[in-house]
């Protein structure tokens, strides 16, 4: 019961902050609300007993990605607020389409009910996650490290100021 209350609290916080991310005119405020959303989502992960993922969420998202966003906003100097011109009708349609998709899926889920879980429970604690990650998913895990290396090199090459002249 108390878990459900904590879940509801973090869920409401996450949704409210997510709405504020999209609505804010100042990009720096958006980033701070994004940090709030990420922390609230990690709270949701904790209530769902995914402690490892909650910790990773705080470390990688709140500690890494959000700080990266703050640096980029400072570098490109997003302080001045540029008004975004878009007529009302297209804006309403653009909001209505994602909302309709979400409502449809939620309706189907609640009307039909979620199918019962098949047997063969494997557990979802630290040990089970580690055994699956380094057992069945070892190859994707190693591929992910190669992806991160490629991203490191690619981001430096794309973002550097000008081409380095090769003496040859």
């Amino acid at each position, binding site marked *: 019961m108390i878990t459900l209350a904590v879940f509801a609290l973090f869920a409401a916080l996450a949704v409210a902050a997510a709405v504020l991310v999209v609505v804010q005119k100042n990009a720096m405020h958006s980033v701070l609300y994004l940090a709030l959303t990420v922390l609230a989502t990690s709270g949701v992960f904790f*209530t769902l007993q995914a402690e490892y993922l909650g910790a990773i969420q705080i470390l990688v998202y709140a500690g890494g990605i959000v700080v990266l966003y703050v640096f980029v906003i400072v570098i490109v100097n997003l302080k001045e607020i540029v008004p975004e011109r878009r007529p009302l009708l297209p804006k309403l349609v653009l909001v209505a389409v994602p909302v309709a998709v979400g409502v449809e899926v939620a309706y189907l889920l609640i009307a039909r009910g979620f199918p019962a879980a098949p047997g063969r429970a494997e557990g979802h604690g630290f040990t089970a996650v580690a055994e699956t990650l380094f057992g069945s998913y070892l190859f994707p895990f190693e591929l992910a490290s190669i992806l991160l290396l490629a991203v490191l090199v690619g981001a430096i090459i794309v973002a550097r100021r000008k081409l380095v002249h090769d003496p040859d």
Partner: protein
Amino acid sequence: MIPIEAVIVLGLLLFAIGFVGVVVRKNLVVMLMSLELLLNGANVILVGLGRRLDSPRGSVFALFVIIMAVSEAAVGFALVLAYFRQKKSYDVDALDDLKG
């Protein structure tokens, strides 16, 4: 025990809000932030299903989604910086070089 419907509806809400942000906003940096929201919604659903099915695969998949989100943020920001240096703007309306 948290009902699975509540978790999926929360994930859907975050996904829909992120979707609206990507489609409606014209600021490149805010669009990238909305993309993070979208991936977060997917993560919530993955973790909820892992809990419901009592399987570690939900957490493992969500971990890979987070790795992908980090890569996307880094490369996306490199592109935004390169674009900003060229155009002195971060509005998607200025991205019309290939318009015939």
